[in-house]
C-alpha cells in the first residue's frame, strides 16, 4: 500500500538530522522574512547545510515562502527563489500569487506547494492552483475527514494534511501584543515583551489557552489544543493522501523528534500491517499523551467535528 510522506518541522539543522534519523521523509524550513510560523529560523547558510543533511539521509526539503507580501518585499522574492533553485530544494511553499509569478520568471522548474493555511477548502480550488503550477495543495485544517477524502478523490495534485500539532487561527498585520502594552502605558517593556516566548490568551468561557506571538509577519494566534490523530490514520492512508504533516511550531525539539518516531511507526504499521496497527495504536497515542506539555491538551482538530455557518 502506498505510504504517505511524513513531513516534519525541524527547529535547526542539527535537529533536522535527528528528525531524519527518527524517520521523517521531508522537512519544511525557512525564515520568517518569507515563511509563516516556522518551528525554527533557517538562514541561507542553514538552508545550504540542511541540503547536505537531506542528501545524506534522502530527505526532501521544502522551503516556506507562504507569507502575505507587501510591495516592499516583492522585488527581493526573485533573489531568494534563485537561491533556493541553486540549492536544489525540493519545493517552495507559497500562498501569495506573487511567489508563483516570481517562480515562473526565475525558476520555472521549481516545484510549488500551495498553502494559504485557511483557504484550501474544496477540490476545485486545489486543482485550480494545480493548473497554475502547483504540484501539491496543503489543505485547510478546518475540514473534516470526509471532506479531505472527497478532495483527494477529485484532486489532480498531491494532497498534504496536517495530522499533528498546533494550527494557526488568526494572523493580523497589527502589533497586537505591543499595542496592549502601550495601552497599559508600559512603553519601556514593549520591545522586550512583544517577542517574549510562552505568551497566551486565556478564554475564561471556554477555559482555553491560545498561544499568541508576534514576528515580522504580524501577530499570530494559535489553536488551544494540539491535533493528534496517530490512532486514526487508516482512512486517509486508504485514500492515498500524499503527505502527513507534523507541525512542531512552539514545541521543543525533543518533543518533535519523539512524535516523529511515533508517527513513523504508526504510518508504517498502518500501511503494512493494519491488524498490528489496530492493536498498537492505542499505545502510540498513550506515548504521545505521556510527553504532551501540560498546557497543550490533545484533540482531533476538525477531523470529526461538524462546522456550521
Amino acid at each position, binding site marked *: 500500500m502506498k505510504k504517505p510522506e511524513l513531513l516534519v518541522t525541524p527547529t535547526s539543522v542539527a535537529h533536522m538530522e535527528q528528525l531524519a534519523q527518527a524517520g521523517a521523509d521531508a522537512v519544511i524550513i525557512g525564515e520568517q522574512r518569507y515563511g509563516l510560523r516556522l518551528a525554527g529560523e533557517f538562514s541561507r547558510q542553514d538552508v545550504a547545510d540542511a541540503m547536505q543533511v537531506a542528501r545524506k539521509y534522502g530527505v526532501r526539503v521544502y522551503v516556506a515562502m507562504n507569507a502575505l507580501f507587501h510591495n516592499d518585499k516583492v522585488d527581493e522574492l526573485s533573489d531568494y527563489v534563485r537561491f533556493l533553485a541553486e540549492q536544489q530544494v525540493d519545493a517552495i511553499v507559497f500562498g501569495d500569487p506573487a511567489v508563483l509569478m516570481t517562480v515562473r520568471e526565475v525558476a520555472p522548474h521549481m516545484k510549488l506547494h500551495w498553502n*494559504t493555511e485557511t483557504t484550501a477548502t474544496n477540490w476545485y480550488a486545489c486543482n485550480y492552483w494545480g493548473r497554475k503550477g502547483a504540484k501539491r495543495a496543503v489543505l485547510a485544517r478546518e475540514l473534516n475527514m470526509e471532506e479531505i477524502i472527497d478532495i483527494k478523490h477529485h484532486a489532480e495534485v498531491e494532497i498534504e494534511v496536517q495530522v499533528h500539532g498546533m494550527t494557526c487561527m488568526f494572523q493580523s498585520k497589527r502589533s497586537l501584543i505591543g499595542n496592549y502594552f*502601550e495601552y497599559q502605558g508600559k512603553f519601556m517593556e514593549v520591545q522586550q515583551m512583544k517577542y517574549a516566548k510562552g505568551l*497566551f490568551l486565556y478564554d475564561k468561557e471556554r477555559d482555553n489557552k491560545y498561544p499568541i506571538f508576534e514576528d515580522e509577519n504580524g501577530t499570530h494566534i494559535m489553536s488551544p489544543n494540539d491535533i493528534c490523530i496517530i490512532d486514526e490514520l487508516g482512512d486517509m492512508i486508504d485514500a492515498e493522501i500524499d503527505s502527513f504533516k507534523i507541525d512542531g511550531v512552539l514545541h521543543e525539539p525533543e518533543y518533535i523528534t519523539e512524535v516523529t518516531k511515533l508517527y513513523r511507526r504508526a504510518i508504517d504499521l498502518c500501511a503494512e500491517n493494519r491488524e498490528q496497527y489496530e492493536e498498537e495504536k492505542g499505545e502510540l497515542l498513550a506515548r504521545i499523551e505521556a510527553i504532551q506539555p501540560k498546557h497543550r491538551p490533545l484533540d482531533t482538530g476538525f477531523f470529526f467535528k461538524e462546522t456550521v455557518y
Partner: protein
Amino acid sequence: MSISQIIDGKRVIVKKPELLAPAGNLEKLKVAVHYGADAVFIGGQEYGLRSNADNFTLEEMAEGVQFAKQYGAKIYVTTNIYAHNENIPGLEDYLRGLESVGVHGIIVADPLIIETARRVAPKLEVHLSTQQSLTNWKAVQFWKEEGLERVVLARETSAEEIREIKEKVDIEIETFIHGAMCIAYSGRCVLSNHMTARDSNRGGCCQSCRWDYDLYKLEGDEALALFDETDDPFAMSPKDLNLIQSIPKMIELGIDSLKIEGRMKSIHYVATVVSVYRKVIDAYCADPDNFVIRKEWLDELDKCANRDTAPAFFEGVPGYKEQMFGVHSKKTTYDFVGLVLDYDKQTGIVTLQQRNFFKPGDEVEFFGPEIENFTQVIEKIWDEEGNELDAARHPLQIVRFKVDREVFPYNMMRKGH
C-alpha cells in the same frame, strides 16, 4: 487617463471614483441608490459572507437591479465564501440566476466561483474580494492575467502601496473607506471555527476578535498574569474605519471604487454615510484645489457611528489608539424615527412612516439628498384618518404633521437622545 483636467482655468477631477454602498435588503438598496451610491453590493441566499443578514431572493435582486438602473447605478452580489465540496452543487444555477436578473458583477474569493462564473455566467463582471487579502502589485498582476475586471485590496494596504499598485498594473482598484473591519488579514482568520464551530469563511463569523481575553506568560508550568486587576483586558477589537479625511488623496491616486462596509447596518446608517461621502466626493471633484472638509460632514457621520473610528492602514501603521480596550461599542447619539413618504407643499404637511417612537414637542432633524439638514419641533400629529395622536407609537404607522420646509420621499427624520 489623467485624473484631472483644467477646464475654464480651473482644475476639476474628471475621473470620479465610484461610491459603492452596502445594502442588506431591498429597502436599504433603494435608499443607498437614492442617497447617491453609484453602485450597491448585496448578498444572495447563498455563497455570501453574512449568513445572518436578510439577504436577497432572486426576485428582490431583479427589483433592485431595475430600481438601480433608473439612477444609472450598478448592483454587485457578494459570493465570496471559501466553498467546501458540499457547496459546489447548485453553484452553476445560482450564478446563472444572478446573470439572468441583470446583476452587474460578483465579488468573489474562491477560484471555484471565479471559473464557474466565467463558464456559466460570462456577462457577470468578476471582482476579487478582500477575502483574498491582496497586499502587493505582483499578486494583483496575477489576478489581472486571470482576466478579472477589478480587485478589492486588503485593508492592510497603505496609500503609498496603492499608488505603486496603480502605477504597475492596469486594473480597477476598489478599497474600503468606511465601516467595521477585520483585525486579521481577511480570509486568514478561523477563530470562529475553533471557538464556536461556526465557519468564518462561509459567513458564520461570530466575531470572537471582539471578545476580551487575559494575557498570560507561561513560566515553566506557572501562568504569569501580564495585567493588573484594574487593567482593561487584552482586546483586539479594531475601531471602525473612517477615511473621510483621505478621500481627496484616494481620488488623486485614481482608486476606481470607494467602498462603504455594512450589509448588516441600518437604513439610517446607509443613508447617512452614503450621503456624506457623496457630498465629499462631489465637492472635491468639482473644485479640488479649494476643497475643505466641512465640520457638518464629520458631525453627520458621528450621528450614526456604532464605534469610534480611525483611518487604520491607509495613512500608516495603526497602533493601540486604533483599537478599543474596555469598551465594545459606543451608543449612537441619534435614533432614526421616520421615513418621509410624501409632502404637500400647499399645506406643509408631511406623510411619514414611523420607525421609532416620537411625540409632539420633540425636536427632530430631517436630512436627505435634496435638502440641507434642518431641525423642526413637532406640533400636532395625526394618523391617516386624521385622528390626533398623543404620540407616534407604532412601528411602520403612517402619520402626518406639519413641517416648515419642503421635504421629499426617502428623506429621513432622526431624533437626538
